[in-house]
């Protein structure tokens, strides 16, 4: 097991009280595994991604633990977490377009970043990796402004994986890209895994069809909790959780005409995570809800590698 997350709870401090954005999530990640993390806005997927590398100022580590390669990560302590960042856990951020310092040449920035972490810059390796993402060597002598959006994205991907981290978190990195570029990014990430640049990866997205192309396993979250986790094909073809089923059925299929059948989506909105009522958080929108749903459904492994948190599925 590369990564072991156990009952992780991260809340946001607000003036009205704590928002329970991540409320008891447990899962594991094997060596070489790519986990697709899906769900709608506000389901806690970005919070989970941030919790694994750097909590922002409003976030609070309330409980649970994260173990990476047998070491417990001190995720609640910003300073103690520093030695693990970049080397063990790394991040490709949502904002690749503006992730690089605009007043430094890229090569110099990379060198200064590595020096600050007491790492030597292996220039041949860097060149090889630039080659891999089809960037010319001379980007290192350029300022970020001189690169196109796609080039910046690829450059950031190279920087983030330069120290061969055990875990790479890719947070919504395809949201701002067109479809063909999305495909290229997904292929590159797969290549990084296959070459051993990263041991395992968490790919955060709201786009299930894209996740399906990349991920070995898909984890669907709802309102700060795990809804379903299973191999990618199982989630797409035979989902057990009613939320996953609705999510999949609201995706359009290529080649199907929607003249007779309208895409409906899922009616209703996720509950407020400020003092949520106990019980299944999906039950207000769930077509299958019954009395038992007033109790919290525990995640149950219904078959091998297939975890569902629903009373109906178990």
């Amino acid at each position, binding site marked *: 097991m590369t990564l072991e997350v156990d009952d992780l709870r991260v809340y946001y401090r607000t003036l009205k009280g704590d928002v329970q954005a991540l409320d008891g999530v447990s899962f594991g990640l094997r060596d070489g595994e790519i986990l697709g993390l899906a769900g709608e806005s506000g389901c806690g997927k970005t919070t989970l991604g941030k919790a694994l590398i750097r909590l922002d100022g409003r976030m609070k580590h309330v409980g649970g633990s994260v173990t990476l390669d047998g070491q417990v990560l001190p995720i609640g302590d910003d300073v103690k977490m520093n030695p693990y960042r970049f080397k063990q856990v790394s991040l490709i*951020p949502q904002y690749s377009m503006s992730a690089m310092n605009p007043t430094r040449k890229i090569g110099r920035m990379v060198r200064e970043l590595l020096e600050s972490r007491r790492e030597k810059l292996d220039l041949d390796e860097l060149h090889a990796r630039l080659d891999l993402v089809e960037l010319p060597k001379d980007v290192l002598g350029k300022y970020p402004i001189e690169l196109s959006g796609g080039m910046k994205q690829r450059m950031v991907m190279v920087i983030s994986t330069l120290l061969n981290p055990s875990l790479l978190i890719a947070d919504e990195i395809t949201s701002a890209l067109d479809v063909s570029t999305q495909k290229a990014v997904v292929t590159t990430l797969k290549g990084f895994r296959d070459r051993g640049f990263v041991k395992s990866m968490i790919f955060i997205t709201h786009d299930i069809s894209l996740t399906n192309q990349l991920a070995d396993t898909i984890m669907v979250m709802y309102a700060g909790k795990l809804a379903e986790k299973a191999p990618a094909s199982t989630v797409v073809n035979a989902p057990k959780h009613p939320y996953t089923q609705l999510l999949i059925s609201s995706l359009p299929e290529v080649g199907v005409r929607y003249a007779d059948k309208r895409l409906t989506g899922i009616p209703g909105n996720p509950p407020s995570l400020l003092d949520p009522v106990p019980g299944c958080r999906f039950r207000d929108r769930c077509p299958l809800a019954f009395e038992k749903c007033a109790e919290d459904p525990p995640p149950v492994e219904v078959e091998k590698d297939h975890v569902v948190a629903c009373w109906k599925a178990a």
Partner: protein
Amino acid sequence: MRRYFGRKLLIYGLTFFMAVTVNWLVPRLMPGDPVASMLARARVAQPEAQEALRVYYNNLFGFDLPWWQQYLNSWGSLFRGDFGISLWAFPTPVADLLTRAVPYSLALLIPSILLSWVVGNRLGALAARRKVLDNTVLPVSYVLTATPYLWLAALMAWGFGVVWGVFPVAGGYSFSMTPSFTWDFFVDLAWHWLLPFSSLFLVALGGWAIGMRNVIIYELESDYANYMSALGAPQKLIRRYAFRNAVLPQITGLALQLGVLVAGALVTEIVFSYPGLGSLILAAIQNKDFFLLQGAFLFIVLGVLIANFIIDVVYVIVDPRTRVGMAGAAA
């Protein structure tokens, strides 16, 4: 690059032309006749002699020519480096008066502008990272930047000069001294320089500190700073990057503030009776001395334009984005 500076130089040229024209026009629109006041000072009793003197003066200063010819002549003499003769300190040439006054003004202006900018930026950057420092630096800076130059100058002259008697309140050096290259004279010079310098420095300092603090806080929240933190870069490196980026708007601010700073210095000089351009301008206005006023303003305009040009060049050096804009971005 050449096009960029070509355009800049053209704009500076136009500004210079406009400034010289306005400088020529404004004193002549002031009420009062300088020749009449010179005659009054000359105390000539006989009407014939007075008339002869009037014709002589009018001819000497060219006031008998039509206005457009006076204007063209002023350009002609400007290019010959001839600023004319002062009416107030007749018959001293304006150029002599200016060369005596300009060193004093520069000695006040250059250190106070540059030092307040550098120290203010450092102070603001420090305040942005320490809560305690922020709580003291910020209010003090707000008070300083809201203070009018002449008020702080008057307050300091009164406090340190009159009440405490530690510093002299007037002049560039003691009346008992004659300018010479001696140690005593330099100490005396510095002693007289310190109060006007400090008042200029302090007022300008507040504005820079506030500006820098705000920009640094913004930069530390920016995407590149977040990315660096996520990759575990030490705060030192992130702050260095943030400072570098935050300096850019401060340089623009310096270009915009130059005129205000110069005006502030002129007023300060008057408060301390410092023998720089400010005192000279006051005397010129009081005595309707067209040529002295024109000459002094010309120096100020030239100074501000040159300083702005230097800032333009510096900006191109420190911000790669301006250079990219000139060369056309590579895909």
